């Protein structure tokens, strides 16, 4: 049958593709608000629970002190490297507090503070950065994934874990942290897409600190905001002032609840700033001005909380001092324990490559064993004043 046979002259009738290919969702509820969500410094702050404010304050102050302590430890050679979260403590602390006991945290290299705020021993949290054996803790025990260095690669892990938990019927939520730079990686895209298609109970928190090492946000994206990426996956995007601990805590809390109740994933962009360099090895003066840093110091997460507590008369000098003393004591404990040399066992190199060592690894372990023995013997001989030759 030709078209000619089907119809006569006149305007062609409209046909449309079958409904499956039609837009399925209204994008409006997925779009972030134009302004980042804030509580501190706004009238809404008056309604914030004083206990929450105090808790956030204590944790953020501890976090700040933890950051300065860890940075100091790099100078003493006690950490191989430290990517500081100074300035980002509100996000770190809120991330930890948003999660329940059985939930999982997926941190990046910059997020040891979140792990510590979740209750992990800071020495364990810093094991990898110390240059010792990796992770330092059992991820399953703490429900904290290993610190992740390859950018955005932990995001699909979070999605898979959350999905597995849901399949098993456990009401576990996974919270994954990533930086503004990390959003450019393909793994970010794939993870968010899987999460939305599977409606997995996972929350993505982008700490947008404006830089990926030296590269400013404008060279990273042309999007209205990073939160706008959410709509392309069919999940809601939220924009929040990342230095406002109360706001981040609230937005994260809502997203975690939504995920737990089967509502699927959320993408949250928190606007923040790292006041320190990228790591102790970085020279931030090469790519940003003191003025910029100063502008952000005026919006410091500690300051915002202390201002609110003070304004509402919820803390006094003594209270502030108590919080600082507590933070100081923890830092002193960390310093002391990090100043002890870790026990190292070179033979561990072969211990966990596979469940069972291959014959090749057994041979290599034997070789190293022999070398270490010879070394020890040579040292002993040298100590005895005897002449030591090559081992």
């Amino acid at each position, binding site marked *: 049958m030709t078209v000619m046979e089907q119809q006569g002259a006149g305007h062609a009738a409209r046909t449309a593709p079958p409904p499956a290919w039609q837009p399925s969702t209204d994008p409006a509820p997925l779009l972030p608000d134009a302004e980042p969500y804030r509580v501190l410094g706004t009238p809404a702050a008056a309604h914030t629970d004083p206990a929450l404010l105090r808790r956030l304050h204590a944790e953020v102050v501890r976090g700040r002190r933890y950051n300065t302590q860890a940075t100091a430890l790099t100078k003493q050679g006690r950490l191989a490297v430290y990517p500081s979260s100074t300035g980002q403590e509100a996000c770190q602390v809120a991330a930890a507090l948003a999660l329940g006991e059985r939930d999982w945290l997926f941190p990046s290299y910059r997020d040891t503070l979140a792990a510590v705020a979740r209750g992990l021993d800071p020495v364990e949290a810093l094991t990898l950065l110390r240059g010792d*054996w*990796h*992770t330092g803790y*059992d*991820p*399953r*025990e703490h429900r904290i*994934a*290993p610190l992740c260095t*390859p950018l955005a*690669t932990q*995001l*699909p*892990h*979070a*999605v*898979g*874990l*959350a*999905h*597995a*938990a849901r*399949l*098993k019927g456990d009401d576990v939520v*996974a919270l994954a942290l990533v930086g503004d730079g990390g959003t450019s990686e*393909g*793994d970010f*895209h*794939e*993870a968010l*897409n*899987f999460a939305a*298609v599977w409606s997995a109970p996972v929350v993505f928190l982008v700490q947008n600190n404006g830089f990926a090492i030296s590269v400013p946000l404008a060279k990273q994206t042309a999007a209205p905001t990073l939160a706008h990426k959410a709509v392309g996956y069919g999940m809601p995007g939220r924009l929040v002032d990342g230095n406002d601990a109360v706001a981040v805590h609230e937005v994260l809390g809502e997203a975690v609840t939504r995920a737990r109740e089967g509502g699927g994933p959320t993408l949250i962009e928190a606007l923040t700033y790292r006041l320190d360099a990228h790591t102790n090895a970085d020279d931030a003066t090469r790519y940003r001005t003191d003025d910029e840093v100063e502008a952000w110091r005026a919006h410091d997460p500690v300051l915002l909380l202390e201002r609110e507590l003070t304004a509402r008369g919820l803390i006094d000098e003594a209270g502030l001092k108590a919080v600082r003393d507590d933070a100081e004591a923890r830092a002193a404990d960390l310093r002391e324990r990090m100043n002890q040399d870790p026990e190292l066992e070179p033979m*561990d190199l072969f*211990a*966990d*490559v*596979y*469940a069972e060592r*291959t*014959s*090749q690894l057994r041979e290599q372990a034997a070789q190293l064993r022999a070398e270490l023995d010879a070394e020890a013997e040579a040292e002993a001989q040298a100590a005895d004043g005897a002449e030591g030759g090559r081992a």
Partner: protein
Amino acid sequence: MTTVAAKPATMAQALGRALRDAMAEDPTVHVMGEDVGTLGGVFRVTDGLAKEFGDDRCTDTPLAEAGILGTAVGMAMYGLRPVVEMQFDAFAYPAFEQLVSHVARMRNRTRGAMALPLTVRIPYGGGIGGVEHHSDSSEAYYMATPGLTVVTPATVADAYGLLRQSIASDDPVVFLEPKRLYWSKDSWNPEHPLDVDPIGTAVVRRAGTSATLITYGPSLPVCLEAAEAGRAEGWDLEVVDLRSLVPFDDATVAASVRRTGRAVVVHESGGFGGPGGEIAARVTERCFHHLEAPVLRVAGFDIPYPPPMLERHHLPGVDRVLDAVGRLQWDQ
């Protein structure tokens, strides 16, 4: 190990059966990948699994290999045993970072606290007339990545048994399926299908005295055929099937070469930087004074895999294997 002659099946069927049995026995086994559900996979290996076990156990994922492997990592972190299918060898490359930086290292990174019991099935190699990107032999990449177990069956019985073992392994396994053997048929014993040697064991598929052909996967049938043809030249060739590249069975391989005094490594993967170099080097390290000639290699050329119309010139065939055997300095 001998296969009790019973029901003949194709390798693809045996692999499908292995997946089914593993899923039936262990509810933590999940199959995932592109088109593995409704379609049953482009090679039909996963046919019927979604129907029998539901979409949550056999899942058509979005089209993103890093995402597939990355989410499988997360699932394994939570205690599942994901079996990932990569549609073709070259389409596993997008997942390379996940494989090398996470899959291979998670156990080590966590001091054994968090092993990843996941299997990555990759159809590999040529000989099926595939266009560009459909015939890569990528085993060299996986061999060079500590933390991965690298398995490749060459027989129908091994396809079943080694896949079951791989899924049961607490370590991540790259399971390389020789595409052109998918339709190879053999009798095997469905009553005792697990009755094959463990991963890490090479098997002498044909005993001989003149020289050893060391091979695996798609090249095993070629070597067996060459060994038969070699009788006309007066050679009695031994054929060793490696079955896994990691762990590598040094003992079996070296014992064979010490017996025969000569060896040729045969594989389809490119020669330069391919598995053959490693194998030849380690055999030589272990058997130097037993060798009458250098260990030779017959491999694919060092070129991108050729188009269907030219692939026969690339693939190591019987003649090329026998030519190499002929160069093993028989006069000395």
